[in-house]
């Protein structure tokens, strides 16, 4: 699986961990810089992301947190003029390397966006579409994965009798959980969530938050959120971004009760941003 997203094997990309954290790391970011043309959006950040935990990225609009999130599964490749320097080490390989098979990478590092974006197809097909593309054709296998993914996304009970109805008939909250199920179906190790519940009503938001907390049993989750309460409720660690830098990165409990940096406190308590 490790080499699934490598087109060529490389020998010199194993990187030693420079810092130790309490939990094992899934991602190690070393001096990452991201540019949009001439403009630098992320200024050489370094951080370790813990395995099977929830890491929240917070900060005002334009601080670089979404740009960073998107770089983790190379979504920025789609933006003309965007380029990244430095390293994001995953399974001893640099994600930013040109030799990475981006399609295979995105199977392991899945993404869910702010606005639910189901395909205009049935609930069932939303999940099986990518699986078929990845070569899984057997109906019984597809059925099994659909059920398993929807159960993990806490949606199965609500949709099991209408799997072949249009996904667009679902409520916003259900659509977002379907998008999470669609990501789960690819059996990722890391899930990137870009404000996944900001467009949802409070009940749907609570369901998505419960789901995210459940999912960390199996996946490493990185979530961008503008909702401070959400970050404090569900995340294990929080990174505060400002103008392309990480101002503070620590356990969420510490960040929200006694942050070390004044700017962090000013942001989380609504004094700016």
């Amino acid at each position, binding site marked *: 699986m490790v080499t699934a997203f490598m087109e060529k094997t490389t020998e010199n990309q194993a990187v030693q961990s420079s810092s130790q954290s309490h939990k094992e790391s899934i991602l190690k970011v070393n001096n990452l810089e991201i540019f949009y043309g001439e403009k630098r959006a992320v200024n050489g950040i370094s951080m370790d992301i813990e395995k099977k935990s929830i890491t929240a990225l917070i900060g005002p609009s334009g601080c670089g947190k979404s740009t960073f999130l998107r770089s983790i599964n190379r979504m920025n490749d789609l933006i003309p003029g965007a380029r990244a320097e430095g390293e994001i080490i995953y399974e001893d390989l640099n994600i930013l390397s040109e030799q990475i098979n981006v399609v295979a990478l995105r199977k392991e590092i899945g993404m869910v966006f702010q606005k639910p974006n189901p395909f205009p197809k049935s609930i069932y097909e939303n999940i099986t579409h990518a699986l078929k593309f990845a070569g899984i054709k057997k109906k019984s296998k597809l059925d099994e994965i659909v059920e398993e993914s929807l159960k993990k996304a806490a949606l199965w009970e609500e949709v099991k009798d209408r799997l072949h109805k249009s996904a667009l008939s679902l409520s916003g909250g259900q659509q977002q959980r379907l998008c999470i199920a669609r990501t789960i179906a690819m059996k990722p190790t890391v899930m990137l969530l870009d404000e996944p519940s900001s467009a949802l009503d409070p009940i749907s938001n609570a369901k998505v938050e419960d789901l995210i907390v459940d999912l960390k049993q199996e996946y490493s989750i990185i979530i961008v959120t503008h909702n401070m309460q959400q970050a404090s409720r569900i995340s294990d660690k929080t990174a505060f971004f400002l103008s392309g830098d990480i101002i503070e990165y620590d356990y969420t409990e510490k960040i*929200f009760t006694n942050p070390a940096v004044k700017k962090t406190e000013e942001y989380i308590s609504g004094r700016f941003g």
Partner: protein
Amino acid sequence: MSTRTNFDNDLNELKGLLVKMAEKSEYAIKEAMIALINQDMEKAKQVIDGDNEIDDLEYEINDKALLLIARQSPVATDLRKISVALKVSSEVERFADIAVNIAKSALHLGNQKHFKEIIDIPRMMGMALEMVSDSIKAYYSEDIELAKKSAEKDDEVDKMFGSLIQELLSYIPENPNATNQIIQLSFVCRYIERIADHSTNIAENVIYLVTGNRINLNA
């Protein structure tokens, strides 16, 4: 006005209410002590009657604090400001209760002649009241140094309490008729010692408020 500005105003208002409650409680303690020394029954009754007003202020502070938690989802220093206001308000409420206890002792003692002149108890009270005043000032101005300074006096109050109790009890054999009076005065010493302890708790809360760290100043 921005939401944040309103929140800051609400936090200041909360602090203001607490300082008002503390001033009333401090005044009640002083009045209770004067009632005891001067055997002023009327004053003692006024202290007891005035306790309701202080209790109401505590309820108001608690309601306001809970409303701010519910509406503002405070974090970090804001959250500590509110949680400390809740804790300090209950310490201050204890001051007022102690004032009532001293006033009740004054009523118990009535107009019976003091078996000796009461000198050391007001002295001990003076020291405890300095602690009250400094700890509240430290809370108001978020002054860690003043908080520590006020708590330093707790040991002296404790020592004074120990020696005063011994002294008072030593008078019983020679003054058996004054036993009730001596016991009441011993209670008063104990109340004063508790005032110093509650002041120290306030000082600890001030340090927690400012630094986020808990320090035991009563060790």
